[in-house]
């Protein structure tokens, strides 16, 4: 009986690995301080669910969720390509509020704050993924593909251009490189994978509402990236495991019923602070956030 519980955690880890590595791809490697990542996650989730409800097979809805999120990534970078650093952070944060607002207000499509319940488990070529174990394998494969693609890109010549954009954008432009094109490509890829993660999330939890994609979630993903270390995909993977598993371990800490909620959160916070005191750049971080 313990298996479904473990698989649930493993599935969430796979989903957040996709989300965190794709954010690190934009934030750590390219220096795009993007706080709108959770909006892409939400767009992917809603797009996938609405497509499946409209009768589109999941095998098409899943990549479509990524493509739609990627398209919004393109729109976002189109609007923000001339700003950077803190200003970019503010504008992208604004973007996630805009998307959150749209999800709340476009009630004819999203059902607004009521959310969408009863989302079906994914069905691929007539085979429905209902068991936790198979869903975990499915999510693991997608997380692995994500890591594989992102890892290939960051280690390619394009990956070096991304890091150069982060370290010295002006210098790179002097060398005749089109940095806004680099940023555009990076953000689209990053948003694409966030959208895929959104689709996996929606069909796993089977209920989504705008509150699932709120500010609190941005903080969670950002925490993962910072604890894992900027510009380290490996770091993001380790950090996802740590950050999602600690609260689960804390469930087994026997505390008096009345303080269980606050006490767990306090211990969780202390552990995070301890990690960052011990490793200010995160577990595997190679660069500082400036």
């Amino acid at each position, binding site marked *: *009986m*313990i*298996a*479904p*519980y*473990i698989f*649930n*955690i493993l599935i*969430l880890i796979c989903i957040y690995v996709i989300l965190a590595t794709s954010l690190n791809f934009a934030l750590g490697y390219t220096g795009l301080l993007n706080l709108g990542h959770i909006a892409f996650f939400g767009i992917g989730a809603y797009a996938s669910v609405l497509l499946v409800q409209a009768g589109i097979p999941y095998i098409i809805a899943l990549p479509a969720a990524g493509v739609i999120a990627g398209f919004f990534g393109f729109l976002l970078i189109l609007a923000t390509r001339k700003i950077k650093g803190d200003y970019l952070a503010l504008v992208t944060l604004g973007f996630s509020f805009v998307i959150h*607002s749209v999800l*709340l*207000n476009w*009630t004819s499509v999203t059902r*607004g*704050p*009521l*959310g969408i*319940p*009863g989302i079906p488990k994914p069905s691929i070529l007539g085979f429905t993924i209902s068991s936790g174990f198979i869903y975990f394998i499915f999510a693991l494969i997608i997380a692995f593909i994500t890591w594989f693609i992102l890892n290939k890109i960051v280690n390619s010549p394009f990956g070096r251009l991304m890091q150069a954009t982060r370290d010295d954008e002006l210098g790179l432009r002097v060398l005749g490189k089109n940095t806004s094109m680099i940023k555009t490509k990076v953000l689209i890829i990053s948003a694409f994978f966030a959208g895929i993660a959104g689709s996996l999330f929606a069909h796993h*939890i*089977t*209920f*989504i*509402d705008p*509150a*699932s994609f709120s500010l609190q979630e941005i903080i969670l993903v950002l925490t993962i990236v910072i604890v894992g270390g900027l510009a380290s995909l490996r770091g993001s993977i380790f950090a996802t495991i740590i950050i999602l598993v600690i609260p*689960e*371990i*804390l*469930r*087994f*800490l*026997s*505390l008096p*019923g*009345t303080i*269980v*909620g*606050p006490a*767990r*959160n306090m*211990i969780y916070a*202390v*552990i995070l*602070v*301890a*990690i960052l*005191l*011990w490793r200010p750049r995160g577990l595997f971080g190679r660069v500082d956030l400036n």
Partner: protein
Amino acid sequence: MKSKNLAKIMIILITALFLLGCAQTQNITEEKEDLVIGSILPLSGDAAPYGIPLQQVAEFAVTEINNEGGIDGKNLAIVYENGDCSAKGGSSAAQKLISIDEVNVILGGLCSGETLGAAPIAEESQVILFSSASGSPDITESGEFIFRNFPSDASSGSKVAKQALANSHSNIAILSEQTDYAQAVKNVFKNTLLTDGGSVVLDEQFTADTTDFRTPLAKIKSADPDAIYLIAQTPAKLGLVLKQLRELNMDQQIYTNEFAAAEEILESYREEIEGAIFAEPAFDENSPNTAELISRLKAEYGDSVTAVPTVYLATTYDAVYLIKDALENCGEDTECIKTFLYSIKDRSGTAGKLSIDDNGDAEFEYEVKMIQDGQTAVII
């Protein structure tokens, strides 16, 4: 180096604490043979001021049951999990309770998101999920093993809409908060009003963090409706809207929800709320049963427990007793408990009489009330 040492000490401390915790858990399970049920409530975050009092009420009921001999000689115990007021939290909590604690009955959740997140897992594992506080109309359809003794949000809206039409207020402006509860009630109100021949002149909404309502109120004022329907998520928000509404010299009839009768509103917004009409479950908080429960709770936990509307305390208290009866009748056979719960008819408890319908929903009698001279008066 200093910070490194500090971090190491912290980590060692935490590990020690964790191991200590594990050791304790083992001792408890070895010593006693308890009947264990689970509970999902928001124990941290924005909804914790609601979750924690409900947890206290549940513990209160459990202590009572155990003092009176428990269930078939066994003690009842509740394992609490934080549902975080979200679907993700509800689903993880349910997964943990079902897989690790192997519970057959879960009390909760409070937020509708929690309940809707937990419902598919409970349904699949054939575990009873019994919510004493979630109102979302979507829960009605969420499964055979999902029950509640709390009214669906849908009920109050239609009752108030009918009353408005009966008072020949057919052109109504709506001002509602963008939360699942408020929108669900509003949708039913609007649909009933439109089907029965009324019309909605304006349908304005505000987000949960709004504190200045003058813009939507000014729009409503210029639309000149017969009456205004106000739906907020909390009594505090309702009070704020009312205050600004009266400041704009709007004197239309107000229709709203049961928050009109909240102590907070009756005390601080006495003039503003006068004459407002609302519907609430036929629940009498001054009935001897309920009044006694509240005074005992206050004695045990202090005034903070009544920060939650009384009806939640009463339904949660009743839910624990209902689960106790079910366990006494059926043991931990969930098929049997399911049949037992569906057969509940006119069961009296601190929240009034309860009947459970074919969808596992509570059938609540609704009363339309009016605030007169700072008191609630039943009009239907």
